[in-house]
């Protein structure tokens, strides 16, 4: 399969560790992920809540540049925007015509888009990943947190079961760790309100951290830069606001995969995490 990688803006900044660990895992699995040339922002929540045409046109501009290759995405928000634009453009000739006028290209809405979790599960396969493991993460109890945008709306993303997705759990199991059942897999963290309405984020992310803690996990695994930022960078604020103590590391699933595949802590940029995973990893003898 021929892929082209769409990193998105977060992976260029606050989620640099997601970027580095995604490429590190790809390289261990001999996956070629060249970056989409001159990609632009997908428009994110700002576009779909203020300008519906722009919200379709920005993803379409990127997707039409992929020239038939499968667009691999790591950010759950970009994934959602690209898939939504595809669905609207391919499903409605009037929208397709308007978008064509804006981007100057009659894009048909059919460039395939895959999240890196889907790519690993479906194209690479869990058995190949399990075979490549050189440091099984035995004993590590993980809450796999999917958030909103991978599985919802299911008619558009077609990702997995919308209420109880398991793609990440299965990968985490394949690398020797223990995914736990917990009830907040797909609850919302407050997402894009991280800056514009922080009180929403503190409250929603507190509920997620509290459920994960109650499930007795060593860490949370995420697949979205906004989820990771809200649960990790704001964890101290949340603890202060709600008089709680969590101290729960929140890693990208690619960082856990990378550890199991033999990448170093530096290659996975583990130092970028605000809540350090070091005590947990050293207890289990898993230091990078």
């Amino acid at each position, binding site marked *: 399969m021929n892929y082209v990688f769409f990193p998105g*803006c*977060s992976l*260029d*900044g*606050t*989620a*640099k560790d997601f970027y580095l660990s995604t490429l590190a895992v790809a390289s261990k699995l001999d996956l070629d992920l060249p970056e989409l040339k*001159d*990609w*632009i*922002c997908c*428009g*994110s*929540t*700002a*576009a*779909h*809540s*203020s*300008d*519906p*045409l*722009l919200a379709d*046109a*920005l993803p379409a*501009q990127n997707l039409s540049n992929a020239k038939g290759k499968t667009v691999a995405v790591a950010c759950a928000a970009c994934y959602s925007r690209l898939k939504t634009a595809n669905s609207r453009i391919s499903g*409605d000739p009037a*929208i397709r015509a*308007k978008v064509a*006028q*804006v*981007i*100057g290209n009659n894009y048909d809405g059919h460039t395939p888009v895959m999240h890196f979790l889907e790519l690993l599960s479906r194209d690479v396969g869990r058995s190949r990943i399990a075979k490549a493991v050189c440091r099984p993460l035995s004993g590590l109890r993980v809450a796999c947190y999917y958030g*909103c*945008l991978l599985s*919802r*709306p*299911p008619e558009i993303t077609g990702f997995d079961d*919308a209420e109880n997705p398991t793609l990440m759990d299965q990968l985490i199991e394949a690398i020797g760790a223990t995914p736990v059942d917990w009830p907040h897999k*797909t*609850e*919302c963290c*407050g*997402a*894009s*309100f991280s*800056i*514009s*309405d*922080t009180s*929403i984020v503190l*409250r*929603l992310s507190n509920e997620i951290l509290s459920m994960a803690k109650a499930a007795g996990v060593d860490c949370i695994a995420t697949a979205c830069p906004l989820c990771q930022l809200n649960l990790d*960078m704001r964890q101290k604020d949340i603890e202060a606001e709600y008089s709680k103590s969590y101290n729960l590391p929140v890693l990208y699933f690619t960082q856990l995969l990378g550890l199991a595949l033999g990448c170093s802590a530096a290659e996975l*940029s583990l*130092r*970028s*995490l*605000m809540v350090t995973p070091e005590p947990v990893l050293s207890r289990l003898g898993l230091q990078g």
Partner: protein
Amino acid sequence: MMAAVLEIDDINGRSLQQISAQGKVSPMLCYQCQKCTSGCPVASRADLKPHQVVRLVQMEQSDEVLSSRFIWECTSCHTCATRCPQKIDIASINDALRVRSKASAKVVPGTAVPTFNDLFLSAIRKRGRIHELSLMAAFKLHTMRLLADFDKLPMMIFKRKLPLIGSHVGQRREREAMFLRARRGEM
């Protein structure tokens, strides 16, 4: 206005119901089961709940809906639309209501979300990509929330989470023209 009066919103000749249907499932199919509200992460703090928004749309009560806090507090998590037994796309209805709220100058005072969205889109127009540090600085200046999250900056820069210089994409002139065409072609 009096809540009992049916007000047909006629800006651009389209009613609330029309902008909410967007060629998909009509909000008139809602029978108030409240499954949307049960799963909504912000319903407990908002002034309206999702099922109430849909009912108000059915009744064309545009003032209540367009000047509500709820439409700006919705996190776009799509739980409502995913669980609706009638497949009403409440999350997208909400997007349409935000656009209308802003266009008709009914945005509830105190929310900074529309300002954030404007700055976000203007950054894409100029640079092609979002540089988070610049966006945060612009937002602080526009909203005078100068000290919010200031304590986190040194650690985030140290942890390489906030590069001081962002990457640019060229073709600014083409992008500005594209944004202009999008504005003219509004859906």
